[in-house]
């Protein structure tokens, strides 16, 4: 097992393309080419044991695809995922991957869709226990389920109820209990509070922090809400159209954003502290990922774009401890 601070997950050159062409016949009849959507197009990062590493970016930039690749819900088109030093992409069969899969679990955004409505809560929470044969007898399953429910702030007899009897926040607690039941070390949390009201979000974020401290969990946390990211993260990766444009520790990213897209995102945060901070005007929209702009994909929206930006994709390079993919930063003009 890796030491604290050592990488528990490493992602190397990871890519996932989707074929979004029309059906073959329509293509042939209408003479249309195949269309490929590069949802994730070559990204690298490492998550250290015990930390919260976050991915942030606008809708469609590939955050959920990265999450699903890591937990094995998608196969990569290219690249590697190492978990605790073992290359999961090299383990062909599900059976070979199973021991590692137990150690990582996922929590989804929609607490309504992600729980089977016909199962009692106790069966939902016990499912990973049974799937991974983690406890031997029915007696201990019940005990473990009760313990898990209490751990997430529900009561043991909530196990008898069905998901529809719970509010959104309570359902997200059930999802967390289910994710924890296999004793994972690593949780992938894809927008776990985005469907919740802020007061409920606070309950869930506090619970997640408590559990992390108590159980020594490592989180990959995904959100489009920068204030939430700022609150939960140790390190942050900012994504734009399938690539990482900046990776830095949360402190420096939020106090001293370097990449022009990170700065744009920070500028969109409403000023709740009411400091009277003037916001820069934000221009443009995210282009289609089917036909991303050449060179730096951000160049049509970037106030600092130069000739090179239109031609050449910038590599993710280290600058003062952060990783930044920007010609402007590399050339020292930003």
């Amino acid at each position, binding site marked *: 097992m890796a030491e604290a601070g050592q990488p528990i997950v490493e992602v190397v050159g990871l890519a996932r393309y989707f074929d979004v062409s029309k059906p073959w016949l329509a293509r042939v009849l209408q003479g249309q080419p195949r269309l490929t959507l590069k949802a994730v197009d070559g990204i690298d990062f490492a998550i250290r044991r015990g930390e919260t590493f976050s991915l942030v970016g606008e809708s469609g930039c590939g955050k959920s695809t990265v999450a699903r690749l890591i937990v094995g819900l998608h196969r990569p088109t290219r690249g590697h995922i190492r978990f605790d030093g073992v290359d999961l992409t090299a383990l062909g069969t599900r059976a070979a991957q199973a021991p590692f899969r137990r150690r990582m679990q996922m929590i989804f955004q929609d607490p309504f869709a992600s729980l089977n409505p016909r199962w009692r809560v106790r069966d939902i929470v016990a499912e990973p226990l049974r799937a991974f044969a983690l406890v031997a007898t029915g007696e201990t399953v019940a005990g473990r389920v009760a313990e898990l429910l209490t751990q997430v702030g529900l009561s043991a007899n909530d196990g008898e109820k069905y998901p529809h009897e719970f509010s959104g926040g309570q359902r997200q607690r059930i999802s967390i209990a289910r994710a924890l039941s296999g004793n994972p070390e690593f949780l992938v949390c894809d927008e776990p509070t985005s469907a919740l009201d802020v007061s409920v979000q606070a309950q869930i974020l506090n619970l997640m922090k408590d559990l992390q401290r108590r159980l020594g969990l490592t989180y990959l946390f995904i959100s489009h809400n920068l204030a939430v990211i*700022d609150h939960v993260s140790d390190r942050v990766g900012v994504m734009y159209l399938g690539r990482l444009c900046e990776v830095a520790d949360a402190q420096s990213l939020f106090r001293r954003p370097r990449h022009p897209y990170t700065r744009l995102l920070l500028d969109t945060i409403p000023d709740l502290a009411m400091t009277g901070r003037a916001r820069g005007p934000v221009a443009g929209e995210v282009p289609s990922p089917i036909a991303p702009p050449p060179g730096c994909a951000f160049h049509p929206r970037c106030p600092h774009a130069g000739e090179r930006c239109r031609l050449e994709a910038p590599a993710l390079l280290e600058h003062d401890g952060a990783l930044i993919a920007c010609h402007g930063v590399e050339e020292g003009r930003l």
Partner: protein
Amino acid sequence: MALLEVEHLRVEFETRRGNLIAIDDVSLAIEEGEVLGVVGESGAGKSITGMAIIGLLEPPGRVTGGEIRLAGRRIDNLAYDSMRRIRGKEIGAIFQDPLTSLNPLYGVGRQLAETIMAHTDASPTAARARAIQLLGEVGIPAPERRIDAYPHEFSGGMRQRVVIALALAVNPRLIIADEPTTALDVSIQAQIIQLLKGLCREHGTAIMLITHDMGVIAETADRVAVMYAGRIAEVGPVRDVVKSAKHPYTKGLMGSIPIMGREVERLSQIDGSMPRLNAIPTGCAFNPRCPDGMARCGVERPDLMATGGPNRAACWLYAPLGVAVHG
């Protein structure tokens, strides 16, 4: 006289399991050109309040008490046709999903021109010219070329711009905007809010901005009303509500929001959840969750009262300071 006056509004839903009171004695006013924010958790009654004002409550929802007046004229008891005329001409609406406001079968220009012609005596040519101008105003690039495009040919953010153009087409005096940016990307949200606010300021249009996002309110609203379980818990100038909330619920709500740069290990949290309509506690609806509750809170229901600052709050903590406004 305020532009919009809502007094003692009550909305009920008749269901098989009895009457549910969704809005219970809500009073609010919006001045000419003012932006009133309405915030609260899902189910607090924000949308139902907005729908009642524009006369679009769906059965079994029904206004069962109170009055709504626009520029002094009662509009809650109008016949369908008179209300429809007011809806296009004097009150515009923007909803969360732009597609609910746009007809997928017609080009956006045609929809704009038809709205303009229905409420003014503009000729088709003049209406089309005005439509192009409006699309330009809401930031659609090359509007003369985009005018015949269909809604599906626009991105979500662009569609919401078209809806704003539609809502502003005949210079209404009030716009009800219900979660206008919730479905949009963060970078687009800021654009849309700035646009809406700028245009309304230019045209002198008042806005009732309904959202669950306190950040949007903080940047946009002049005053804000905080709703909880079908009632207004607190109302006041936006700065006072955000920075010095008086009602224990508003305080808890503000503390639960992660704010950039505010280093806290834990967010302050309000335990429990908002009650469902069929189980609203007696007395103050917030009392089972309230850290400051007193004996009286479980028995008597507080109305909005003075707090010693610019805010009014429906909370017994302020009873000695002011006289409860009974209605």
